[in-house]
């Protein structure tokens, strides 16, 4: 029993770390192009994709679900791009219109699909690492979500490796890339595709909030303390790993222990949602860094500002 628990903890943390690292790559691209909320939009809009895939294929096979969800993700960003481009709507509002509409149609589709299968919309929003990992651990194999997250990480890493310089150019100055004849439109589709795949694969494991958090918070933390792109990737990765580990420990030991202590043993709390605490820890790391960078003026951020003022 104890071994099984340790194994479970191990795989939860491994999954969390792989998800965090996989998210860093699209995360940096999104944050630097001011599209951080896209992850949020996609993760909501995935619902109709799942429902449609199920209604059309009649199975809950993973491959169908993934295809449906990825297409829905692409559709979200494509649609909001079209609304911005042709309707001249503020990008934020366009994304809002798109994902609200898609989520609503997802709710209705699910109502019809629910005759045949139990698809809980809440599951989409607050997936849980624990339940996702349990299957594999009980069977004594590597949990599916874990190797899924690791495969995703490898995919994202290879994209970053092969297209690093093009991605940098595109995010820094897409007008220049266009003037040099690069297929800027298709490259943007590629970035969106990576974001969609990442969001979809991760939210199955850890829920959409963890995905949005891991797409933005580690990168933002890194941006506070570094101005070099390479170190931003490294720092974001480290923040993600730290948040995953401390988050899970908080969920399993920290908070239950504290509750137990403060209520003098009157309340007994088992472990909490690990994805929730991982996000909370990521947020705490970010806030601490923000405060430190301002209070002590240790980091290039604050130094630079003084240089500019002179």
């Amino acid at each position, binding site marked *: 029993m104890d071994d099984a628990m340790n194994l479970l903890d191990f795989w939860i943390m491994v999954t969390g770390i792989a998800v965090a690292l996989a998210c860093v790559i699209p995360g940096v691209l999104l944050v630097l192009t001011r599209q951080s909320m896209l992850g949020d939009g996609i993760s909501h809009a995935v619902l109709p994709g799942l429902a449609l895939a199920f209604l059309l294929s009649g199975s809950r096979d993973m491959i169908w679900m993934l295809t449906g969800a990825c297409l829905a993700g692409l559709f979200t960003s494509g649609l909001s791009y079209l609304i911005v481009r042709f309707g001249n709507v503020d990008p934020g*509002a366009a994304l*809002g219109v798109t994902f609200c509409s898609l989520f609503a149609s997802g709710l209705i589709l699910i109502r019809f699909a629910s005759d045949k299968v139990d698809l809980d919309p809440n599951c989409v929003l607050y997936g849980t690492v624990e339940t996702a990992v349990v299957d594999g651990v009980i069977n004594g194999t590597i949990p599916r979500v874990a190797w899924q997250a690791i495969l995703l990480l490898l995919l994202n890493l290879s994209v970053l490796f092969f297209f690093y310089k093009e991605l940098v150019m595109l995010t820094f100055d897409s007008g220049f890339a266009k003037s040099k004849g690069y297929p800027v439109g298709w490259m943007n589709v590629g970035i969106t595709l990576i974001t969609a795949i990442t969001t979809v694969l991760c939210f199955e494991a850890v829920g959409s909030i963890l995905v949005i958090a891991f797409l933005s918070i580690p990168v933002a933390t890194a*941006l506070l303390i570094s101005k070099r792109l390479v170190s931003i990737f490294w720092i974001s990765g480290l923040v993600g790993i730290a948040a995953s580990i401390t988050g899970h420990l908080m969920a399993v030991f920290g908070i239950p222990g504290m509750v137990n202590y403060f209520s003098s043993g009157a309340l007994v709390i088992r472990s909490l*949602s690990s994805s929730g605490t991982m996000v909370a820890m990521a947020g705490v790391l970010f806030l601490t860094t923000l405060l430190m960078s301002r209070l002590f003026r240790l980091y290039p951020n604050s130094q630079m500002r003084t240089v500019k003022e002179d």
Partner: protein
Amino acid sequence: MITPLLGDLLLLEWSQLMRIVRLEDYNTRMVFLGTATFSSLGGMVGTFLLLRKRSLMSDTISHATLPGVGIAFLFLYGFTEVGKSLPLLLLGAGISSLLGVGLIQFVRRWSRLKDDVAMAIVLSFFFGVGITLLTLIQQLPTGNAAGLEQFIYGKASAMTAGDATFIFIAALLTTLVCGLFYKELALLCFDRDFAKAKGLPTELLDFILLLLITVTTVIGLQAIGLLLVVAMLIIPAAAARFWTHDLSKMMWVAMGIGLISGMGGVFLSAAFPRLPAGAVIVLMASLFFLISMVFGTYRGLLLGWLKHHRLSQRIRLQHLLRAIYEWLEKHGQCGDILDDEFGIHDIRPFRAWDSGILELSFRKALKDGLIETSKNKFRLTGNGAREALKTVRHHRLWELFLIRYADTAPGRVDRDADAIEHVLEPEIIEDLEKALELESQAKRIPTSPHFIETISRSANG
């Protein structure tokens, strides 16, 4: 998936339908009142939010309510062991989302991070903390905690009279505040820097706007659900933008779209109980957005495309007529006598035509009866000659206007206008005419005020 819906429709009897439409059901009446009020309120407040370019703020604010609810519940639980007191939970939600708003401002001010990252961080961080608290609450030894989420993020179809009255009063108060600060908020949304320069407390106004959004969100969350709140704050306002650029009109349009979507959604979901009311309302609003985007009279796509198509076509025809006139002019014709014959190849050297455009323009001119053809040769018809004269005169007047009034001209040149007289003041036209007269006294149609390089180059080469 259509079959069950049809089944509902068949089961639905006329009398039932009338009951719904006449709002005889007490429950339906309450849902109707509450939802309609909220949807139009969302349109009103959302308009400010849209123009301030912060639509997604509603998403962040609504997600940021969760930890407040959790903490309020735990607080209550600690004292009373009950925990479910609606006003206090909502107060917690409100405080929590205000903290979220504060954190966004704090992040923006203390770092170089942009708006979108700040929103994503606060959204996910607060929601993560909220989820943690909820899983903690679920383990408390009280049956009362179960379904706290549903209790807070309610459903439109389960609305009670108390909820509806609450929404109504809150909506009245919000509208009052909106009315009081209307001028200031309008200025803030249209031009923040200008508002600041005029000495308005922009920070305070931003806070008031976000406070309004927070109040709207909190009252909406409990009554009609999170999704609907976000959607109603974004979609109607975004749709209204396609119809008008006038703020007060935009607000009315947004309120109208919200109202109709809200009412329509409630009717539909009452008629088809399988349809979740919130989602139907959102989809109705989305439908309005789609219609507005295509058919809108201010920024609609159809109108834009039509205008652009017309502009390109007119410009091409004007190019053709001018080229023909210039060819005729070169061959010694001017004024009313414009009856020389010409071929396509004669006209081609006068401009850089995109491939196939010259032939296309000839065909269009033939169809419009501006030119006539015989034996591969063309000539201007009477109508065509008049049009050519007018086009060339306009063109040269505009050219002259551009040169003589260079400081103000670029913004005002509108070659597409049917008559220059509709755009420019009579004095200016008089002045331009005089200038033209001076340059070419003998001719009714002036020659081009400067040397036309294209002609000379192509004529020589």
